[in-house]
């Protein structure tokens, strides 16, 4: 969704590209950590012991989705 929209407009500046690509290094670990944190918080709240793992896996998938979106958008250009 928004990831695709983020990259749907043509880049006119190298600086814009620099900022976008600098994001790539952070997006995968950030998504993984965010997923794990959400899962761990849900575990504490719901007194379960497995949601951190589900959150971690979803975070890794979310990171890959963002990376693939960025790669596809740059390939289109």
């Amino acid at each position: 969704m928004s990831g695709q929209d983020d990259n749907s407009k043509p880049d006119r500046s190298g600086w814009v590209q620099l900022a976008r690509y600098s994001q790539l290094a952070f997006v995968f670990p950030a998504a993984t950590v965010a997923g794990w944190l959400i899962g761990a918080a849900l575990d504490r709240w719901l007194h379960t012991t497995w949601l951190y793992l589900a959150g971690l896996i979803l975070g890794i998938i979310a990171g890959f989705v963002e990376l693939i979106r960025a790669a596809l958008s740059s390939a289109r250009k």
Partner: protein
Amino acid sequence: MPEQLWFTEILNHLFAGPVTGLLRTFHIDPKYPQAPITNAVAMEFLVFLFLVTLFFLVRARLSVDKPGGLQHVFEGVHGFVEGQSHEIIGHHSERFTPFLVTLTFFILICNLIGLIPGFESPTAVPVVPLGCAVCAFVYYQTQGFRHHGIAYLKHFMGPMWWLAIIMVPIEIISHLARMLSLTVRLYANMFAGDMVTMVFFSLVPIGVPIIFLGLHIGVSLLQTYIFVLLTMVYLSGAVAEEH
């Protein structure tokens, strides 16, 4: 007691009682009740005071015929941010300019204040970049809802309805990851910049630190630019029509 900068000491001397009382109202017990205001909060407050004073000065001296130096600087920054946001967001990007310019000035001054002896960069403490990232996150989500109404929620559901059950958690995580990546990028760069400058200052106190101070200025400018530019990118995604 933690190590306090002179400005933090003044603030704690004046406001420690009311601040501790306020925190206890929200069931937060400060670690040091005599000094509940940290250096980062004090520096943020100083930056806030500085910017408000600066804005008042510029407002009082606005002139179409004879613009002063300060007005030129502010017009330059405003024009630059407006141009970038128009390039990334497209039409009707002007309504986002005030927020983006304020964010630019706040982060830039927070980054640069650490270069002055006796002060620290508040952005080298994780909570301050997190606060800026939360502001950016709340702002672009709010603008998304203002622009699309409740239909904005469709953006989280993926291209096909039957994918929604898996896409909603993935989209929520990826939006939260944006906030985390904005925070970590700014914090890590400013913290590393401060550390490198301090290490070289302790090793070779004359000459060499100037190079790293120059590097710190460059990193401060670049990180401000990247933070604001990514906020624009997220805004453009939130208000884009072609979903």
